[in-house]
């Protein structure tokens, strides 16, 4: 069920070509499109983590953006304290998000379906409220600004600065590809298969002796961690962290990306992320009513193309 297509050599080659093609973007694309592509890649990492939750673990969460936001703030706070190494900044987002996810997951995962949806939403809104109100830490709605780009040891020697659009784009590309690879591996592993079983029929898994709560908890925390890493990238990219990163509509757009792209395929969320981002940033410069178009598109997909773009490809 999990994109068996990708295991074949032909498709691996296709992916490699795609990745290399993407890597070359900084060389030929106009600056604004590099920016859009960068944002899309960051959003793609977020969308992939949401797909782990939704598509693989079967947990629909309306509060996933909260972990993204927590990651962004963690990275921002660290960066503003003069830490500028790339790895610490990336990792702190992931770790902070994972830590925050633990109590939330422990409480929310005791419910399911609608109540899970509501609980995750509630916790996310609480975190948003914290971001807005804990002014001494987060500067409230002004947010944390002036976040510098990180440095990495080898880059200085090669005279590459991450302030350069192209270089930062490649960084995001690398993170996205790594995330994709890690999640692919996870999906095919015994852990991933067990998760799939829990999603398909939790009662049966329980009757087979599987502690389903623990698996879902693990998936929840891992997904949050990945979202946190995306958050770090966002903070580095934008140079600021603001509360609206955590607002539930951000989670909503994540769901849009995953559904339009196609759940349970990993490449789907990536495609969906590009669609959403292009609509948000690209379309909006030409068309005023881009939200309307995206909303209508989304409705169309939910009703008529439930398998998303990936589903369309599979059918033809």
């Amino acid at each position, binding site marked *: 069920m999990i994109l068996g297509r990708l295991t074949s050599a032909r498709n691996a080659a296709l992916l490699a070509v795609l990745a290399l093609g993407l890597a070359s973007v900084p060389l030929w694309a106009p600056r604004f499109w590099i920016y859009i592509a960068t944002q899309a890649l960051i959003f793609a990492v977020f969308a992939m983590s949401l797909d782990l939750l939704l598509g693989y673990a079967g947990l629909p969460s309306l509060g996933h953006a909260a972990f993204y936001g927590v990651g962004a703030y963690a990275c921002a706070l660290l960066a503003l304290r003069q830490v500028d190494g790339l790895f610490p900044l990336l990792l702190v987002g992931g770790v902070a998000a994972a830590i925050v996810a633990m109590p939330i997951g422990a409480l929310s995962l005791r419910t399911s379906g609608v109540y899970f949806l509501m609980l995750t939403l509630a916790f996310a809104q609480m975190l948003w409220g914290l971001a807005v109100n804990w002014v001494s830490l987060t500067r409230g709605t002004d947010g944390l600004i002036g976040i510098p780009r990180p440095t990495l040891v080898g880059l200085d020697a090669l005279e590459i600065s991450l302030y350069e659009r192209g270089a930062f784009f490649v960084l995001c590309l690398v993170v996205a590809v790594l995330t994709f690879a890690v999640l692919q*591996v996870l999906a095919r*592993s015994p*852990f991933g298969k067990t998760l799939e079983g829990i999603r398909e029929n939790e*009662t049966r898994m329980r009757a*087979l*002796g599987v502690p389903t709560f623990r698996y879902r908890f693990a998936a929840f925390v891992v997904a949050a961690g990945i979202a946190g890493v995306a958050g770090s990238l966002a903070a580095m990219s934008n140079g600021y962290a603001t509360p609206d990163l955590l607002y539930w509509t951000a989670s909503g757009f994540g769901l849009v990306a995953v559904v339009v792209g196609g759940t349970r395929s990993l490449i789907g969320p990536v495609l969906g992320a590009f669609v959403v981002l292009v609509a948000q940033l690209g379309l909006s410069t030409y068309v005023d009513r881009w939200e309307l178009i995206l909303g209508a598109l989304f409705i169309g997909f939910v009703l008529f193309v439930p398998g998303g773009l990936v589903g369309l490809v599979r059918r033809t």
Partner: protein
Amino acid sequence: MEVSASGLTVRFGALAALNQVDLEVAAGERRAVIGPNGAGKTTLLNAIAGELRPTEGSIRLGGRDATRLPAWRRARLGLGRTFQRSTLFSRLTVAENVALAVRARDRKGWRFWPVRDRPLEDEVARRLAAGGIAHLANRQAARLGHGERRILEVELALAASPSALLLDEPMAGLSGDERRTTLERLGALPDDVTVVIVEHDLDAVFALAKRITVLDHGVKIADGTPTEVRANARVQEVYLGAI
């Protein structure tokens, strides 16, 4: 593994689905639980398996008090079960279904690297063959016929290598051949596996079970050998002479 329930009561609001039911099944014993519809047989199995929390009473598995244990822990103690309505992984293939069960039994779920597990594949193939469904290995479970689903349901329970098995109407809706295969499969179970089977198919009941427990309206009305149960006036009354 012994399976026993003591004073088991399950109430849904004002309705007592089970009322002070005592059940003692020795290790390796083959026990059938019969009774008219609504007698509480499935409720009994659900309570023993941990899917349902009883209002009163206790459950013991293998001498341990299991009343507070969640369903998965009871399964880990060696309890396997089938469900009245086939509870399968519909969107997965038959082979994947059995693989999940074997993997769960071997507790391989916490491995994060995909490796080809040949012993697992071999075991899955063996089990499918024994169940007579090897030809369906790559078919999606949702696409199986009713009887085939029931057989897969039994295979999933068996794949966990249980030391006590709860079967909920495994024969329901099976064709003649399918019944035969399933009866053989169940009959061939090792002697130390306890079996509690809820069934309406009385031929299967007499073929498999050494003792029978009869429930009616949530109350145990008889408990003994087939002969004793057949002779029991109250049982006859409840079944209107069907036995």
